[in-house]
């Protein structure tokens, strides 16, 4: 290439750079800031829930991987032998590699502890109890049984997954330079109630002990896999790691079951009607805390000053949005860790959608939802109507959450 040609190409790059700089983007579109604030708030809520979900996922990974391993094109006799080998173990320790919520998973029988990102989730499936401890804020959350804890029974899940199909895959070289044989399988994992989570799982096993050393799980339609590495069985684990007692210095956030007020009666529930873009009942978007309290009474508890929780009504009102400290979001059936001790939202939308409505009923009422966003995990099923400021979450094909955001 001649010097002139090189200079010419450099000119083109410079002209392209100038063209890009000269683009007139115009003003930030009206409404985009509001939608962005709402998206940030929703993401923060999902993150508060994520640690718990990751624990579920990690336990499921292990169980799936084991199932896939033990069913890999061997006879049922071989499977039975290997299953017995795993069932003979008592504890498990693994590193969970996940770009969103990695950490360490410890399992001892029906008890599980997941530590990551400054938080620990401790669950005991046999006692149906779960606590989350956030060491960054010294906050503790008692998470009631809502179908998730049963998924934390590592060995129980493994037994349920014995039928997962599998095929051999290329081996994995571990830190010691040994080639660990692998297998993969696909299964529908029961995560809550009758809800299932379809996943592809891969597992690699120790060539000597035949026990799994590495596993990958990828929910269908998601590009990112959760990985369990450095899996060890029968490691000594201190009993204190699985203690469900709230440590001194931690503040319990949210309500306990005995603090939860009675659910509203039919007359009061009828007033809890969500109208997209408007509000709920007499509560309108843009109202202040004082105006809300004048209608609904004092919140049953408050988080970070802006999350007003009416747990007996299954309702959370969030002071977020274009105007500081004004109502910008309404969440029926909040699922963040602090809000799980609550009654189901007894109200409905003005188009008749309530908790338990079917997807078809939602489509009939609001039309086809917006295209699914790629950054929403596949197992979280939402129907979003951005122009209405409405997002409806589903679990097992039924409405489990309704979120309305301010749109003006």
């Amino acid at each position, binding site marked *: 290439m001649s010097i002139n040609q090189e200079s010419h190409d450099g000119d083109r790059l410079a002209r392209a750079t100038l063209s890009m700089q000269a683009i007139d983007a115009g003003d930030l579109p009206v409404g985009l800031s509001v939608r962005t604030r709402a998206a940030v708030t929703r993401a*923060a809520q999902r993150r508060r829930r994520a640690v718990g979900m990751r624990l579920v996922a990690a336990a499921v990974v292990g169980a799936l991987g084991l199932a896939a391993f033990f069913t890999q094109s061997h006879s049922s006799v071989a499977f039975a032998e290997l299953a017995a080998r795993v069932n003979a173990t008592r504890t498990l320790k693994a590193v969970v590699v996940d770009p969103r919520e990695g950490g360490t998973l410890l399992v001892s029988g029906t008890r599980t502890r997941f530590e990551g990102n400054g938080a620990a989730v401790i669950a005991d499936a046999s006692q149906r109890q779960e606590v989350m401890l956030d060491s960054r804020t010294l906050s503790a959350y008692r998470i009631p049984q809502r179908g998730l804890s049963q998924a934390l029974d590592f060995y129980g899940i493994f037994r349920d997954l014995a039928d997962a199909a599998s095929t051999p895959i290329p081996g994995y070289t571990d830190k010691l330079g040994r080639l660990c044989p692998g297998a993969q399988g696909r299964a529908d994992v029961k995560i809550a109630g009758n809800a299932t989570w379809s996943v592809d799982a891969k597992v690699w096993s120790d060539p000597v002990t035949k026990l799994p050393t590495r596993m990958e799980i990828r929910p269908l339609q998601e590009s990112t896999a959760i990985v369990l590495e450095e899996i060890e069985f029968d490691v000594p684990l201190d009993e204190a790691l699985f203690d469900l007692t709230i440590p001194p210095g931690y503040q319990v956030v949210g309500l306990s079951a005995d603090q939860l007020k009675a659910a509203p009666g039919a007359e009061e529930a009828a007033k809890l009607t969500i109208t997209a873009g408007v509000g709920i009942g007499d509560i309108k978007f843009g109202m202040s805390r004082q105006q809300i309290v004048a209608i609904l009474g004092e919140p049953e508890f408050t988080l*970070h000053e802006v999350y007003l929780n009416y747990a007996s009504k299954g309702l959370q009102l969030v002071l977020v949005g274009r105007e500081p400290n004004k109502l910008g979001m309404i969440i029926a059936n909040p699922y963040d860790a602090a809000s799980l001790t609550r009654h189901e939202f007894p109200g409905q939308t003005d188009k008749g959608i309530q908790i338990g409505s079917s997807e078809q009923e939602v489509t009939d009422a609001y039309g086809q939802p917006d295209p699914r966003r790629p950054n929403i995990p596949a197992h979280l099923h939402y129907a979003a109507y951005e122009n209405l400021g409405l997002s409806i979450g589903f679990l097992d094909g039924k409405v489990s959450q309704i979120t309305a955001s301010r749109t003006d």
Partner: protein
Amino acid sequence: MRSGSADDIDAVLREHGQAVWRLVVRLVGNDGPDAADCFQQAFVEFASLHRGGGIRQSGALLKRIAAARSIDAVRRRMRERRRAGELDVGLISTGREFEPDAQAEASEFLELLREALAELPEPQSAAFVLTQIEELSGGEAAAAIDVTVNHLGVLLHRARTALQARFEAYKPTREFKP
């Protein structure tokens, strides 16, 4: 940022929203939903990076994230066009024949730059966008990319070399008058 704090994200939006919007539109255009999507994704990702601590008023970091998400969007478009069989070395010229030469040439070069940036490794594209398009200082850009200023220079050199090679290989869809 207190986790999900409305006040903090409001402040960041007020301070940096317009600049981030401008960057996103520069990189993806404003003729579809991509710009708004990238804008939202950038703020959500930025907020998630700051949970547990105070949000730093870091416009440079926001721009780096916004640039990465915008370039992701360009890559997706390129893949879709390739799937649709529309893309011939990255250019669509529908209607361009009716544009004045200078405008058509600028459009082609602009589109070529967007696609060439999408082919660079992320640290290189970030270095180019932050310093050459957004005109941040070396220190600001290096901090946002989490490299030393010296290494920023290396990234920028590599980015320029690759971009110039892309322009060298490029053949305009028609001859533009000088």
